[in-house]
């Protein structure tokens, strides 16, 4: 009996009702999730739905639209510029992704070697990725200048293998490739540093075991490095594909879709039609047309990941 009295005496500070409420788990969970879920619902989920709705209307800037069914999509389907932008987006994404991952993996492997000043080099390598994309895009714009391109100068006057300046942005294919080069330049650091992190989680003893098993350098790469890197690769690939596919800044800064709409991506075309053009409904339809591609990319990498759960070791709780 005494023990009860004692125990009651000792739990001295009885919390007030508000403190009690905040210690009640269901209430606390709601409170904690409210800001994030609220903001995301209002400014992400709702606009996502609104975008789909807008794509079925003829909304213009300053005027609410009416439901027009599939009219926007029908007119896009007849619009060669739209199809060109789809083509450009796919080429841009495919080529840039292949190059980014090829070169990024190479750079990651180089950075994984022992060398002096490794941390410094790693830090330097990331710089293109942290600087605002438009601003580095402007540097590329200047580098691609028809008259004063430093690349032209280099190949004309330093190693004279060309007679004329390159016309980087004046013709469709050179312009596309120039944009892809700029995108690859900007994307390599992210890929390389992410894959480097993946590489560093591979235990050296695996390589030693493989070496004792008689594996050549290539075989070690093929049978140890690549499979162990797969989970990281899948995630990085998803991100990279999604953000390359929906890229806007580089094209907007360097060519604005020119010459003659030859380099419009879906995102820049959507912007062009929607904001300066004022055709919000049509712009939204172009943006919505990107969604199936994005969903497909996400699902592919998700299932790629799910298949490889064993590699994470611990089971996810």
């Amino acid at each position, binding site marked *: 009996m005494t023990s009860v009295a004692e125990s009651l005496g000792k739990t001295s500070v009885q*919390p007030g009702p508000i*403190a009690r409420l*905040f210690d009640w*788990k*269901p209430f*606390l*969970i709601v409170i*904690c*999730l*409210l*800001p*994030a879920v609220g*903001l*995301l619902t209002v*400014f*992400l989920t709702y*606009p*996502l739905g*609104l975008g789909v709705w*807008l794509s079925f209307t003829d909304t213009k800037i*300053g005027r609410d639209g009416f439901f027009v069914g599939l009219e926007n999509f029908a007119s896009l389907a007849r619009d060669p510029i739209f199809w060109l932008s789809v083509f450009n987006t796919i080429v841009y994404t495919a080529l840039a992704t292949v190059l980014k991952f090829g*070169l990024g993996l190479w*750079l990651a492997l*180089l950075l994984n070697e*022992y060398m002096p000043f490794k941390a410094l*080099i*790693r*830090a*330097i*390598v*990331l710089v*293109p990725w942290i*600087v*605002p*994309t438009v*601003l*580095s895009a*402007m*540097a590329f714009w*200047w*580098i691609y*200048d028809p008259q*004063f391109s430093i690349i032209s100068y280099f190949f004309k006057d330093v190693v004279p293998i060309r007679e004329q300046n390159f016309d980087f942005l004046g013709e469709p294919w050179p312009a596309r490739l120039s944009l892809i080069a700029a995108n690859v*330049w900007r994307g*390599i650091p992210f890929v390389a540093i*992410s894959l480097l*992190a993946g590489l560093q989680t591979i235990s050296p003893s695996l390589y030693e075991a493989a070496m004792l098993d008689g594996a050549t350098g290539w075989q070690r790469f093929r049978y140890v490095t690549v499979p162990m890197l797969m989970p*990281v690769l899948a*995630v*990085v690939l998803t*991100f990279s594909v999604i953000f390359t*596919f929906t890229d*806007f*800044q580089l094209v907007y*800064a360097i060519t604005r879709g020119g010459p003659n709409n030859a380099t419009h991506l879906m995102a820049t075309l959507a912007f062009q039609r929607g904001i300066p053009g004022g055709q919000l409904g049509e*712009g*939204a339809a172009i*943006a919505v047309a*990107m969604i199936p591609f*994005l969903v497909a990319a996400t699902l592919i990498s998700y299932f790629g990941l799910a298949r490889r759960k064993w590699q994470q070791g611990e089971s996810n709780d």
Partner: protein
Amino acid sequence: MTDAVQQVAAKPARTGVISWHSTPRRVATIYLPLACFVVVLLFPFYWMTITTLKPNHELYNYKDYNPFFVHSPTLVNVKKLLFDTEYPQWLFTTMSIAIAATVLSIFASVLAAYAIQRLRFRGSQWVGLAIYLAYLVPPSILFIPLATMVFKLGLYDSPFALILTYPTFLIPFCTWLLIGYFKSIPYELEECAMIDGATRLQILRKITLPLAVPGLISAGIFAFTLSWNEFIYALAFIQSSEKKTVPVAVLTQLVQGDDYQWGALMAGALFGSIPVALFYSFFVDYYVSSLTGAVKE
């Protein structure tokens, strides 16, 4: 170069790693390609800087001046940027917006990550997954509907349009980063605190947050950088020059007509990059860890 080679050759066995490759081969297969990467990755910044510092007569005359170097450096372009444009104003706007969006996002993300990872309720994984998926929704497909919302809410051309929309990509990122950090804190610490008499909010404040400080810093600087670099929303929702953020302003306010003032433009690009680059140089390790941490989740 030869010097470096000799140095490397002088101490062959390093920290137990047996190198099977000879030194020349190492140079050819590792150092040379690496040097190429570094040169290519850094060249645009070098070119930006050089262009900024060149006087006009030198800038467009490759015959008499080797374009790879500056012969008579000048600060004219810098002076013009700093004093004849609204650059200081843009800088201030960008900074304020980035800080406000970061604080808002971190606040929301800390609470959300805590609820998902530490309060563990039925369906918490699904909320976590939903937030992860939110990260995969790119701004390019949101800006049109957001633009109509911004109009309707009367936020067009107001910094709040950006402060409220940036969290859409900051919160998912920060939440995932913080979930990773929280995960590394043993549950027993919180259980022990619970037995010690702490309420859940006290546990968050006195145990979980102090231990997640590196994560908070990572999330903070990352969110700040992402806000600083954001382009499409700032381009679409802001009209007045003085309210623009640096990346948008440099592109839209400095490019006028067809006669590009490359010196001034590159000065703008350079001075728009320097603040983030400085910021980055102070926090390199946090950037690397948050980048890789986010990927691993």
